[in-house]
């Protein structure tokens, strides 16, 4: 209720300043009254005008009366003014005639709104590269060359071929598919996009894996790439499993695509690794198109007044990664740089944190909490059930005889009132239900309509509005589970609907009001780890106005950052660390505990208590949330003569020499990539090493242009705008040589030089023998030990020791335990700007909990009954660690029973299903209620 959604809207002007902006918003007419529209779809069914469907990437048609897609939010139709015949030519009006709620408004007008806000956050996304101008791709000139976004729709179950993959030319299943990487990315010559789009390698691999799952029999799939960039968490494993699964990965950048024989498929021509020309015919070719700055980037930057970089993305610094150059204006997502979903979601929370910190003093000043009427006590009342049967336009009534169902419902025990509504979910029906509850003293409600997943919250609100406990409603899904699937058999569908209603009534009669649950929140945070991530989170939370306890295991804040020299953008790091340390140390809301180790952790979201060992002394800390930022470290290798010669260095060791200028005497430096990464022991990419190496190589070349600099690599992964560094390094003459895991470089060190031998595929596998003054090993990043912490909090790590987030895409900074958040290297290797971004995101996520004094909980929770004898079978089966065992005394005897933590319990019912004696039940799904429902179902037989 505190988000106001303005669709079909654009920003026209921004005035004012940080803390108080006036934004002028232009809202295009929707031509549909959103209050009246009940999304029945009749308008679209009747609309005669067909238009290319943007959602299906233009592969199929929609109507001029449309919703963008089935699950659209808001679920309200719109008329596409540019294509509607009535709006354009004044004829038609079919939708207006059919609309059952008179929602069509042909006279709807454009609106201009002035909105006052304290901050503006820009998240316009990206523009997918359009390859139509790249002649060599033959895109749009031959049907079986498609973009990756079109292919995504071809694969989708909600796509134009309903998930059964066929190619556009002849509708046949393709048996041989190729992906062309870097179309519109890493390409200065053809389109001026020098950057890497970061996500295309992974989506191409995903598409090939899904394709293999979708098709039967042999399928030949090839990905033609320059470097595979699977630098995200768990991505390399996915890549390796795709290789094992038979996807071909061919390193090549094809120069020509031609239409295939008879206009079907396409021919790809390319030079292979050894320079031989190859020509292959494919049934279907997918162009892995890049992510460009959004179309309106320039306009937005001028309107709002902030700067863009040369590619049209937002200009930002590594230390304030989501702040634009205009104070009070932030940006997140692909507008900042091409990025994948978890990165965009992290970025989003990070931008939210910045706005929240800036506006901290005004928090809660404009939001509202809904106030409900007092609840009626129904204790001791006989069940008086009201049944509301929905026609859903013709959605239900077209198949199910709703009148017969309504009549039948009247005959059921306990039923006081039955109504049939055209749309039970419409606003006027909510008023009607509330009125009927009061008039007839109803104390249980059954809604026979659609799915509780989307509509139960609405009916719960209606009950609350009418002064009834919200848990006194039961739904029977006579649409999704009935009319939609039994269209061909109306008679049986009607009988089934009666069964469904009878079951719902049987259960409803036994429903009991459930009391509101909540937990008090200790509005204080603990941050574990005093590196850049931990300090950033601590400072953000403190600046929001909450107390923070910051734990650091050493006697100094700053962590790894003290050892770093420059960011990939070339900014000096140490002065920023100094500034941050000073801010944190001088903040009156932050208590710093150095030489501190977490000893215990009990409690759950909102209420944790820990004992912390501070230099031998134990301190107790109470807190509502915790941010885990325990960091990582550079892996020390035991290969490539490391430790045998002082000429062999790790990255961080070599940085010190670079900073001091000690490297200028060298004539030759070799870098070896993936030392300790992407191997059997550590099958992940350490993400930062390629950029670090390229940066160092550039510094060497700039110090001494005649120096020979070699980079021995498996793939160069300078993702996003970092690609510019790779380009620059090549221009400066840095030599990049690919090697593979089964032909790793051979190193021997003696005296002042190191000999590195490696087979160069570009020279037909001929061995290079490089005499280097220094060998730099780009070693892995490994997480610091978190075993104890993981056991204390019962959170988890993956196989590689990095903490596991609650959801890899959508909750990338939440840990699996509510109230715990993660930031920095303990989550996955990442460069400083991303660590800071994630730490700010953790601030925002923590702020969501800290903003309230109590946390409301759903009342559907497990409840221990008197029958529990403490057998503890359920303790192990609970997926949320919500159950523990306690002892108690009764009549001098010691007994055991379980206790459930209401904050942890999700009401899944696994305990109840496990318990052999009814010792635990889930509210709203008790054994009696379920039994009544089942008995009632069987009564129809």
């Amino acid at each position, binding site marked *: 209720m505190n*988000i106001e959604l303005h669709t079909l809207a654009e920003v026209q002007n921004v005035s004012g300043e940080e803390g108080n902006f006036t934004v002028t918003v232009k809202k295009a007419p929707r031509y549909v009254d959103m209050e009246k529209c009940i999304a029945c779809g009749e308008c679209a069914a009747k609309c005669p005008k067909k238009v290319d469907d943007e959602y299906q990437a233009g592969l199929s048609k929609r109507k001029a009366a449309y919703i963008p897609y089935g699950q659209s939010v808001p679920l309200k139709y719109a008329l596409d003014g540019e294509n509607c015949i009535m709006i354009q030519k004044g004829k038609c009006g079919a939708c207006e005639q059919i609309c059952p709620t008179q929602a069509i408004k042909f006279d709807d007008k454009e609106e201009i709104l002035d909105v006052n806000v304290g901050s503006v956050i820009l998240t316009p996304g990206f523009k997918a590269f359009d390859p139509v101008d790249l002649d060599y791709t033959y895109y749009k000139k031959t049907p079986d060359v498609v973009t990756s976004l079109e292919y995504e729709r071809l694969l989708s179950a909600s796509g134009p071929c309903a998930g059964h993959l066929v190619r556009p030319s002849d509708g046949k299943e393709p048996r041989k598919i190729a992906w062309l990487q870097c179309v519109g990315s890493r390409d200065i010559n053809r389109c001026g996009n020098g950057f890497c789009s970061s996500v295309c390698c992974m989506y191409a691999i995903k598409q090939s894996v899904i394709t293999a799952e979708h098709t039967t029999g042999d399928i030949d799939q090839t990905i033609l790439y320059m470097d595979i960039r699977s630098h995200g968490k768990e991505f390399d494993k996915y890549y390796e499993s795709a290789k094992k699964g038979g996807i071909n990965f061919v390193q090549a950048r094809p120069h020509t695509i031609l239409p295939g024989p008879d206009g079907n498929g396409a021919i790809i021509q390319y030079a292979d690794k050894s320079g031989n020309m190859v020509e292959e015919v494919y049934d279907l070719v997918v162009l892995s198109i890049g992510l460009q700055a959004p179309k309106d980037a320039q306009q937005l930057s001028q309107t709002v007044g902030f700067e863009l970089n040369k590619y049209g993305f937002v200009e930002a610094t590594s230390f304030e990664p989501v702040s634009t150059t205009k104070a009070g204006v932030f940006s997140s997502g692909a507008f900042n740089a091409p990025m994948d979903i978890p990165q965009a979601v992290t970025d989003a929370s990070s931008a939210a944190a910045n706005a929240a910190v800036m506006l901290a003093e005004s928090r809660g000043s404009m939001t509202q909490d809904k106030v409900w009427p007092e609840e009626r006590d129904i204790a001791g009342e006989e069940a008086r059930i009201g049944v509301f049967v929905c026609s859903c336009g013709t959605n239900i009534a077209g198949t199910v005889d709703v009148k017969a169902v309504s009549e039948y419902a009247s005959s059921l025990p306990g039923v006081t009132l039955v109504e049939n509504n055209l749309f039970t979910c419409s606003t006027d029906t909510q008023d009607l239900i509330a009125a009927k509850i009061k008039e007839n003293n109803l104390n249980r409600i059954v809604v026979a309509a659609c799915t509780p997943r989307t509509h139960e919250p609405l009916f719960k609100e209606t009950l609350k509005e009418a002064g009834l406990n919200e848990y006194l409603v039961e739904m029977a899904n006579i649409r999704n589970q009935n009319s939609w699937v039994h269209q061909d058999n109306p008679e049986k569908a009607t009988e089934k609907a009666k069964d469904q209603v009878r079951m719902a009534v049987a259960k409803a009669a036994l429903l009991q009001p459930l009391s509101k649950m909540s937990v008090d929140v200790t509005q204080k945070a603990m941050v574990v780890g005093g590196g850049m991530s931990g300090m950033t989170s601590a400072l953000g939370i403190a600046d929001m106005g909450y107390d923070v306890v910051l734990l650091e295991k050493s006697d100094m804040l700053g962590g790894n950052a003290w050892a770093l020299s420059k960011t990939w953008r070339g900014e000096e790091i140490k002065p920023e660390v100094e500034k941050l340390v000073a801010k944190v140390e001088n903040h009156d809301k932050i208590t710093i505990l150095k030489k501190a180790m977490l000893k215990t952790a009990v409690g759950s979201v909102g209420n944790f208590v820990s004992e912390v060992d501070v230099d031998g002394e134990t301190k107790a800390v109470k807190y509502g949330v915790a941010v885990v930022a325990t960091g990582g470290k550079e892996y020390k290798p035991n290969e490539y003569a490391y430790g045998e010669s002082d000429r062999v260095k790790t990255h961080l060791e070599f940085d010190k020499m670079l900073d001091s200028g000690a490297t200028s005497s060298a004539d030759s430096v070799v870098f070896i990539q993936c030392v300790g990464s992407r191997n059997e022991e550590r099958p992940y990419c350490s993400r930062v090493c390629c950029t670090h190496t390229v940066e160092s190589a550039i510094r060497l070349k700039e110090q001494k242009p005649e120096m020979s600099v070699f980079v021995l690599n498996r793939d160069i992964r300078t993702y996003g705008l970092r690609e510019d560094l790779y380009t620059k390094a090549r221009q400066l003459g840095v030599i990049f040589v690919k090697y593979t895991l089964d032909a790793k470089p051979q190193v021997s060190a003696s005296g002042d030089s190191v000999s590195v031998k490696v087979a160069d595929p570009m020279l037909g596998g001929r061995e290079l023998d490089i005499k280097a003054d220094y060998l730099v090993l780009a070693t892995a990043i490994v997480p610091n030990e978190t075993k104890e912490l993981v056991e204390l909090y019962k959170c988890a790590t993956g196989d590689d020791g990095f903490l596991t987030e609650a959801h890899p*895409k959508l909750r990338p900074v939440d840990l699996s335990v509510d109230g715990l958040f993660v930031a920095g290297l303990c989550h996955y290797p990442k460069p400083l700007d991303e660590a800071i971004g994630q730490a700010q995101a953790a601030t925002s996520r923590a702020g969501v909990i800290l903003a309230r004094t109590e946390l409301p909980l759903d009342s559907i929770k497990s409840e221990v009954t008197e029958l529990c004898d403490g057998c503890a079978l359920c303790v192990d089966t609970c997926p949320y660690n919500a159950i523990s065992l306690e002892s108690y005394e009764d009549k001098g005897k010691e007994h055991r029973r379980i206790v459930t933590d209401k904050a942890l319990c999700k009401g899944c019912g696994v305990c109840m299903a496990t318990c052999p004696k009814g010792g635990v039940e889930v509210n709203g799904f008790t054994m009696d209620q379920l039994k009544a429902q089942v008995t009632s179902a069987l009564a129809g037989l």
Partner: protein
Amino acid sequence: MSANKLGSVMVVGGGIAGIQTALDLADSGYYVHLIEKSAGIGGVMAQLDKTFPTNDCAM
């Protein structure tokens, strides 16, 4: 800087980043205006079939 700061934020763009930004802010005590140029929110992610590495439905 304005002396009287407003406790509201405008988020421009209703893709996955805009949605997450809006939710975080609304849940932590700020009133949010979410501006979307098309008829519904969701952005490009809603067009994706599945997401790796879990191959979950993107919807």
